[in-house]
C-alpha cells in the first residue's frame, strides 16, 4: 500500500507537536479524517444545508437525497440485505443502549440471561448490566483464558432456554483479538435456536471486510469516527425481521406516521429509530469516508495492518521488558497492540511518548473488568491505520527507549 500517498490525504498528519513530527498511533480511539470527508461536510453546509424529509424546497430535497443515498451506500458497503436495516445513531454506545433498552425492555423477563465476554468495552458492557438489573435478568460474564483467548466450548455450555442474548465484540479494543462471529453464532444456535446476537464492531469494521449478511448476527454496531468519518455518527444494523422486536427509545419528529391526541403510529422503517433531526452532515460525511475506504480496499488495509503488526512484534523481540497483551499471531488480531514496559507506569510512558510527538492511549481503555482480571492498573495502546507505516513504529520504539532513560 502506498502510505506516503495516503498520508497526503490526511492534512493533520503534517502537523508538528512539541516541535516533533506527529506520529498518530491512537486510531482505536478515533481515526483521522481525509480531506475528502472534511470537504464533503463543509460543501454540504456551504451549498446544500437544509433539514431532511420535511420541506419541498430544493435544498431540502437535495439534502434528503444525499442522506438517503448515504444510507444506501453504507448498507451496500457492509453487505446489508436492505438499506432499511441501517440505523444512524451517535455511535456504538448509543447503538448498544438502543438495543439494550429498545429490545431488552420489551423482550427480557426475570431470570432471562444475557451472555457477555469479560473483555468488552464499557459501552458494550454497562448497558447490558443495567437492563439486566432493571428486568431482574442475569448477566453472565464469560472469563478469558490465560492465553487471552476464549474457550467458546465452555461458553456454549452456559446457554440454556433462559438465554436470550449473546453479546460479542468482533474485535476487542485492548486485545485486538478477532472473533469468528459466524462460527460462534452457528454453534450457539445449536444450543438455543431463539437467541439474539449483538455484535460490537467498533474495532473490527474499520479494519476488516465486514459482510453483515454472512456474519448472521441480528445487531451490529459501528462507530463512524473510528473509520475516517466524523464524530457523532454511529451505524447500527438491525436485521429487518427483528425490527418488530425493537422499540424506538427516542420518540419525536421524523419517526411517526400519524399523531392524534390519544395515539401515535410509528413509521415501519429504520426511520422509526431516528427521532428528531439526525446528524445529516455527519452521515453524508460518513458516506464519503466509506467511498475513501472502498477506493483503497478493506483487504488491502487488512494486509497492510498485518504487515505492521509483524514489524511491531519483530522489533518487540529486542525489548525484554515489554509485555504484550493478546495473541502474538498477527492474523488473529487487528492492528493494535496494548503493552506495558516493566517498572514504568503506562501514564508516564504515554506522557514521554507524547512529548516525542507519538500519540498513544494509556489507561484501562474503558475495559476495567479486563484490566482487573489481568491485575494491571492499565496499559499503553498503539493502534494503527491505513496511513501508518514502519517509520511510525520506529518512532514509537525510539520514544520508548527515551522513556526508559528518563523514567528508570
Amino acid at each position: 500500500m502506498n502510505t506516503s500517498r495516503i498520508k497526503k490525504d490526511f492534512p493533520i498528519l503534517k502537523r508538528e507537536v512539541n516541535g516533533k513530527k506527529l506520529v498518530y498511533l491512537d486510531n482505536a480511539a478515533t481515526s483521522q479524517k481525509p480531506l475528502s470527508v472534511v470537504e464533503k461536510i463543509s460543501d454540504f453546509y456551504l451549498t446544500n444545508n437544509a433539514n431532511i424529509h420535511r420541506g419541498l424546497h430544493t435544498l431540502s430535497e437535495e439534502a434528503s437525497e444525499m442522506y438517503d443515498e448515504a444510507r444506501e451506500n453504507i448498507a451496500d458497503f457492509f453487505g446489508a440485505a436492505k438499506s432499511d436495516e441501517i440505523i444512524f445513531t451517535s455511535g456504538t454506545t448509543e447503538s448498544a443502549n438502543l438495543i439494550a433498552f429498545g429490545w431488552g425492555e420489551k423482550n427480557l423477563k426475570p431470570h432471562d440471561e444475557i451472555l457477555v465476554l469479560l473483555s468488552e468495552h464499557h459501552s458494550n458492557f454497562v448497558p447490558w448490566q443495567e437492563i439486566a438489573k432493571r428486568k431482574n435478568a442475569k448477566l453472565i460474564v464469560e472469563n478469558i483464558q490465560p492465553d487471552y483467548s476464549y474457550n467458546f466450548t465452555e461458553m456454549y455450555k452456559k446457554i440454556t432456554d433462559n438465554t436470550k442474548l449473546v453479546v460479542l465484540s468482533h474485535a476487542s479494543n485492548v486485545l485486538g483479538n478477532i472473533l469468528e462471529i459466524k462460527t460462534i453464532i452457528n454453534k450457539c444456535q445449536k444450543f438455543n435456536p431463539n437467541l439474539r446476537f449483538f455484535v460490537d464492531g467498533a474495532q473490527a469494521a474499520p479494519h476488516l471486510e465486514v459482510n453483515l449478511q454472512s456474519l448472521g448476527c441480528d445487531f451490529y454496531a459501528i462507530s463512524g469516527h473510528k473509520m475516517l468519518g466524523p464524530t457523532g455518527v454511529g451505524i447500527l444494523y438491525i436485521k429487518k425481521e427483528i425490527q418488530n422486536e425493537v422499540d424506538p427509545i427516542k420518540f419525536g419528529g421524523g419517526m411517526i406516521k400519524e399523531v392524534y391526541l390519544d395515539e401515535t403510529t410509528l413509521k415501519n422503517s429504520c426511520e422509526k429509530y431516528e427521532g428528531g433531526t439526525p446528524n445529516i452532515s455527519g452521515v453524508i460525511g460518513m458516506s464519503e469516508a466509506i467511498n475513501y475506504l472502498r477506493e483503497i480496499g478493506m483487504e488491502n488495509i487488512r494486509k497492510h495492518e498485518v504487515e505492521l503488526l509483524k514489524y511491531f512484534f519483530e522489533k518487540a523481540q529486542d525489548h525484554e521488558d515489554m509485555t504484550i497483551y493478546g495473541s502474538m499471531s498477527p492474523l488473529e488480531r487487528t492492528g493494535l497492540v496494548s503493552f506495558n514496559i516493566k517498572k514504568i507506569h503506562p501514564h508516564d510512558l504515554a506522557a514521554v511518548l507524547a512529548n516525542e510527538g507519538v500519540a498513544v492511549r494509556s489507561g484501562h481503555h474503558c475495559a476495567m473488568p479486563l484490566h482487573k482480571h489481568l491485575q494491571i492498573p492499565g496499559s499503553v495502546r498503539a493502534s494503527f491505520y491505513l496511513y501508518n507505516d514502519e517509520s511510525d513504529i520506529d518512532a514509537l520504539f525510539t520514544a520508548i527507549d527515551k522513556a526508559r532513560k528518563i523514567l528508570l
Partner: protein
Amino acid sequence: MDIYREEFMEIYKNPMNQGKIEKASLVEHGTNEACGDEMDLYLKIENGKVIDAKFEAESCSVGIVSSAILTDEIKGKTLAEVKAFSKKDLLELIGVNLTTSRIKCATLPLETLVKGIEEYERK
C-alpha cells in the same frame, strides 16, 4: 520536557514517606477510576496534630510525587491547618506544568486526605 525534570524525578525515584504506619489513627483508601490509580494514606494524629504521615500507591509518577510532597507538607500541622490546604497549594508545591488529564493524578492524594479526615472527625 517540563514535568520529568530532575527534582521531580528525584522524588519519584526515592519518594519520602512511602510505607505503612502501624497503629495509624486513620487509614484511607483512594482510587482514581479514570486511570486506575490506587493509594492508601496513613496518618498518626495526636492532640489534633498530624505527627506522622505515610502512603502506599500504585500510580504514575505524578501520583507518587504528589503523595510524597503532600505527606511531607502536612506533618506537624494541626487538622485545621491541614483542612485549609487547597488543591491550588498542592499543585504549586509540585511545581511542574501538568496537563489537564494529569491534574487528577496529582489531586488524588489530597482528595483521599480530605475524605480520611472527614471520617476521622466523624468518629
